[in-house]
């Protein structure tokens, strides 16, 4: 929830938990935030300092457990340390490459009293340098490389949103006529309906996007980290491209992919330094080639098929996009539902696509959507989840009910842990082990919380359900009973080259 809040508005989200089991329950949430560079501060209770080390009731080594999964953490046992530490924690969480910070505070420190004056001097931490900036010589080399590129592509990452560089990226892309491929977390960093927007890259990226990357002569990696879901097999990734990497975290440079020029620094500031030196360019031929690749893919797009009675998840997401004018804040869970959402909901406004990318945490969707709604109450918020992921954190419906907030939750109910089923279908001879699922009645679950539940089984019911959900005052759960054994296409098998994609079989489309 704190994570969803932070991602929706860019401010630090805060989670409070009690000692012991309360603190350990935060672990998955902390790693989720860590992997996706989300600024959160977690405050946990600790037993009184004289009891530490005695296995006291609910004593847990929380700073020990969270050491490798936080950007930094603290154990505080003196009341006078609380205020300065909290300031430091917020500073660390939100500066540089953001991330989670945990503060474990002993009971005696919490209960003590102190005279205290607010210290408003800037926070200075000697070992912490969030403010790198690229070397001028590297900036010059980068401009030259950009100028001489014939087939450039921008790889738009989460860093665009974190750094607030949307305007700069747009200006850069338009001036240099460079197409933009997004990572999963980069979605909504560049307007999805812009002619230069290609869509998502990587394992479930559109074929033309991966083809563009593979044939490019220059990759402009903007605030992204060449995750394995993006690169596929690294040795065959964009083999003919020079690579410029703009990234705030020096440890990401040359980690997965060796680059020609690394510009370590804030993306927005760096682009502001580059932009005045970049001349307009026209890559008409290159853009036309990409357009031709797109045409080839559209026959395989399930969204282009006439209604044949089947309810496909793609239709649901596409309708949702249409009826919400692409303007709502969409928080997806993990699995097939996440990929379909990424493929079919196009975002024009920044920070409107939220999902757990790096960790792929099932159960993220609903609580993050609630957090996002708190962060941006004026926004229409939709959570999209699978039947599996929803059940991992469905108790949060009671939070939504209790707080009286309005979100809509679309469950893409395919009766399976669908993404795993898909792998079993493709790579394990359809041995559906532990993936079929018998779920409770989701409509009744919504009603049990005093919320509204709607069930949809046919395509022609989708629009009505979406409209009804939007009009209903409280939170609404829609159980979309979609095609059970549909798969996410295209797909790059694990560790294959990203242009070796499994495509939606054309005959299968014709049959249905």
């Amino acid at each position, binding site marked *: 929830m704190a994570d969803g809040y932070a991602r929706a508005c860019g401010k630090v989200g805060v989670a409070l938990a009690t000692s012991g089991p309360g603190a350990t329950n935060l672990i998955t949430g902390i790693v989720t935030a860590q992997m996706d560079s989300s600024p959160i501060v977690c405050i946990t209770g600790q037993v009184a300092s004289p009891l530490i080390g005695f296995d006291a009731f609910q004593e847990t080594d929380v700073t020990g457990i969270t050491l490798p999964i936080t*950007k930094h953490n603290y154990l505080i046992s003196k009341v006078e340390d609380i205020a300065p530490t909290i300031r430091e924690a917020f500073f660390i969480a939100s500066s540089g490459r953001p991330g989670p910070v945990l503060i474990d505070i002993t009971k005696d420190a919490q209960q003590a009293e102190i005279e205290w004056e607010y210290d408003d001097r800037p926070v200075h931490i000697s*070992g912490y340098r969030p403010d790198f900036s690229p070397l001028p010589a590297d900036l010059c080399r980068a401009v030259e490389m950009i100028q001489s590129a014939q087939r450039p592509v921008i790889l738009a990452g989460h860093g665009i949103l974190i750094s607030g560089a949307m305007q700069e990226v747009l200006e850069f892309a338009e001036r240099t006529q460079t197409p933009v491929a997004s990572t999963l977390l980069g979605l909504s960093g560049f307007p999805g309906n812009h002619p230069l927007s290609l869509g998502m890259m990587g394992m479930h990226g559109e074929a033309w996007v991966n083809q563009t990357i593979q044939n490019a002569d220059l990759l402009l990696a903007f605030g992204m980290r060449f995750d394995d879901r993006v690169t596929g097999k690294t040795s065959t990734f964009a083999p003919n491209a020079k690579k410029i990497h703009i990234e705030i975290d020096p440890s990401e440079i040359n980690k997965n992919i060796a680059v020609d020029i690394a510009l370590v620094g804030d993306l927005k500031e760096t682009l502001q330094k580059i932009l005045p030196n970049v001349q307009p360019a026209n890559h008409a031929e290159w853009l036309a080639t990409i357009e031709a690749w797109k045409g080839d893919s559209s026959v395989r797009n399930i969204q282009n098929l006439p209604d044949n009675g089947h309810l496909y998840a793609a239709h649901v997401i596409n309708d949702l996009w249409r009826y919400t004018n692409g303007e709502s804040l969409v928080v997806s869970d993990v699995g097939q539902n996440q990929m379909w959402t990424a493929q079919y909901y196009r975002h024009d406004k920044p920070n409107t696509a939220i999902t757990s990318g790096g960790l792929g945490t099932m159960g993220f969707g609903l609580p993050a959507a609630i957090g996002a709604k708190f962060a941006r109450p004026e926004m229409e918020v939709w959570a999209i989840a699978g039947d599996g992921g929803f059940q991992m954190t469905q108790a949060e419906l009671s939070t939504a009910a209790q707080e009286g907030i309005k979100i809509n939750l679309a469950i893409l109910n395919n009766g399976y842990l669908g993404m795993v089923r898909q792998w079993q279908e493709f790579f394990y001879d359809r041995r559906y082990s532990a993936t079929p699922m018998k779920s409770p009645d989701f409509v009744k679950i919504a009603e049990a919380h005093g919320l509204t539940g709607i069930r949809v089984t046919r395509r022609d019911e989708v629009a009505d359900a979406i409209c009804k959900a939007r009009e209903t005052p409280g939170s609404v759960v829609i159980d979309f009973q979609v095609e059970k054994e549909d798969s996410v296409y295209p797909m790059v098998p694990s560790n294959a080259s990203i242009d070796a994609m499994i495509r939606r079989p054309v005959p299968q489309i014709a049959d249905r």
Partner: protein
Amino acid sequence: MRHTFVALVEDKPGVLNRVVSVFRRRNFNIESLTVGHTHQVGISRITIVVDSDQTEVERIMPYMYKLINVLQVEDLTHTARVSRDLAMVKVNATTENRSAIMQFAEVFRARIVDVGNDSLIIEITGDEEKVNGFVDVLRPYGIIEMVRTGIIAMERGTSTLLNNMAETQNIELPIEYKMASGN
């Protein structure tokens, strides 16, 4: 291939744990590790030696830098440096062979720091090869116990970790560090 890293860190609880975790997480076996104070109050110095062929070792520095309490890190593997290891070796010594052992100690410039009825404790300082050589010489007499500090290393010449920290990161050293480093 052996890598020697030195780091300046804040002298606070748990910092060593954080540094070591960077290696543990990547499954690197640390060969030796030494920690001690510097001349600067509040700053400790760590020397870590890792033996690994994985190229990932070379990429460990940025991860160490990421730690909030780490002030400066350097990989001295390919740098002209002085490194020292100290060992205390407790070895069997009879009336017959005692003087032979003591002669060896002299050759290696080692010092006898304890004499027992049937044993000697010998202290030796030097680079690793020298210490290893001495230990090999003592082995036939029967080593009963041995302790080594692990390697400490320092770059040759005037450059220091503290000043490099200011230079490489293009930052002003905090006043308190400047005074101590004599600049």
